[in-house]
């Protein structure tokens, strides 16, 4: 099956001499929900900008559903929908006009465009605001408007550059559900985000880019397997005066009276629970101390930074 996106030896050097991409390779399979992560300035937006024709590449090859952007750009663009990081619509235009105009750029006649626009504006909860000028929308609504605009021509590949930045938790969750449904219906999705729990919750495969290089390109599952230690916080029914004996498990009491337990690869939580139970300690609830992907992400980027002799 043709890859949704294939990037080969992609390089970008800006006019200032800054080398944003140092020959990256990337493959995104059809139907995938793919995360492209990296610290600020790592090259995420440059990569996606090149794919979407917003940035000129210096060299390398990019194909979208088999269409080379150098030789078959029009077809490549037809398959793409883009939700950029920053607002990029005319704030004075009406919501419906922004979406219908975008459809027109893809050659979709007005009548058909209005039907498609209604569909996505309804799904994204913006239909009641269709005649409002875009500037009157809240930040979250503006982000949803950009998603509706990106989908109006029904692309096979949707690229989202930090779509939930600045969006409240409730709305973020509803956008996750929307994107998951879209992915289930067959749309390939590439996501960049600073909310690593978002990537962990949504994406099946992941690439991490740092200083213009791909430093990790694997499945989310395999990546998370690399975690050798995971810390859990346990809420107890009674506060403890001293740390209970858990033998092979490192543990400590937090200032809040919770028990923090480190579980290494190969160890299991059942043992922790049984040992606590033997000592008459009841656990009311439990949560991971930090986002697992966040821990890995920081570790990988720090390791790459140390190897290249730079600082974060």
């Amino acid at each position, binding site marked *: 099956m043709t890859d949704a996106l294939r990037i080969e030896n992609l390089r970008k050097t800006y006019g200032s001499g800054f080398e944003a991409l140092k020959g990256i390779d990337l493959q995104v399979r059809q139907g995938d929900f793919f995360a492209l992560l990296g610290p600020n300035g790592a090259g995420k937006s440059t990569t996606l900008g090149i794919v979407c*024709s*917003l*940035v*000129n590449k210096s060299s390398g090859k990019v194909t979208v559903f088999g269409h080379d952007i150098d030789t078959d750009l029009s077809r490549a663009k037809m398959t793409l929908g883009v939700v950029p990081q920053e607002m*990029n619509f005319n704030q004075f235009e009406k919501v419906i006009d922004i979406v219908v105009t975008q459809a*027109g*750029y*893809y*050659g979709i006649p007005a009548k058909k465009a209005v039907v498609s626009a209604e569909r996505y504006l309804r799904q994204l909860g913006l239909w009641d605001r269709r005649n409002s000028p875009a500037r009157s929308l809240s930040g979250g609504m503006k982000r949803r408007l950009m998603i509706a605009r990106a989908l109006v021509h029904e692309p096979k590949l949707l690229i989202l550059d930090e779509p939930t930045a600045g969006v409240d938790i409730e709305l973020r969750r509803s956008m996750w559900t929307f994107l998951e449904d879209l992915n289930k219906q067959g749309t390939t999705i590439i996501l960049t985000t600073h909310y690593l729990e978002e990537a962990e919750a949504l994406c099946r495969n992941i690439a991490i880019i740092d200083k213009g290089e791909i430093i990790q390109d694997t499945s989310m599952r395999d990546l998370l397997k690399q975690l050798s230690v995971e810390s859990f916080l346990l809420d107890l029914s009674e506060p403890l005066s001293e740390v209970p004996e858990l033998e092979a498990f490192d543990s400590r009491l937090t200032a809040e009276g919770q028990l923090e337990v480190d579980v290494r690869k190969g160890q299991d939580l059942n043992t922790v629970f049984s040992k606590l139970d033997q000592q008459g300690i009841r656990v009311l609830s439990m949560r991971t101390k930090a986002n697992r992907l966040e821990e890995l992400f920081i570790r990988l980027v720090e390791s790459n930074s140390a190897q290249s002799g730079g600082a974060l």
Partner: protein
Amino acid sequence: MSPRAIWTALMTIVVREVRRFTRIWPQTLLPPAVTMTLYFVIFGNLIGSRIGKMDGFDYMAFIVPGLIMMSVITSSYSNVVSSFFGIKFHRSIEELLVSPVPNYIILAGYVAGGMARGLGVGLIVTLVSLGFTDLSVQHPVLTVLTVALTSMLFSLGGFINAMLATKFDDISIVPTFILTPLTYLGGVFYSIHQLPEFWQSVSMINPILYMVNAFRFGILGVSDVNVGISLAMIVAFIVGLIVVCLRMLARGQGIRH
């Protein structure tokens, strides 16, 4: 894209452009009507009556073609430069860049929008002028052809200015320091035959002189220059500017990093 899809994309740009300048008509359509009315009253009626005949015509009748052309040139140019720089500034140009619209359609759409405003303003100024003088068009086809080509030429000029501009100041430099002086010195208010020979020769390198005179010939039947040369020059400039615009678009100059 299929030819039908390309047509839809073109009409989308054109309709958007026309909607834009008609929505803000007090800024786009009304000012030329007010300014030209003042020109007609002050230069045509008050001062013109003391000047007497110019090339055998009342001064009012003589300046009408030039003033119509001046408003067409200014409106065509400023429509494209402000609209295209505007979408660059608030980044909605990305809507176009990510879409499969071919570059020549982007150019055609914006030029058509500039021409729609330029010719619309030309029509308004013509109607205003009818309140001051009688206009009997001598060569209707030539008149329409000249004004349409001139509008196209300055729309293309506005497009180049917008692509090169990086700040709002950059879109007012050309109209203020190049376009307006060339228009005023392009025979709008006088016949170059009244100038000393040296300044007649200098005037001949002003391209706007040829456009104003071709248009005046179409309406009044008199011109300071050869009308055939005028039309050939306008067409040559148009072809040259189209090539420049398409090359800039292909390179993504000022619009892609």
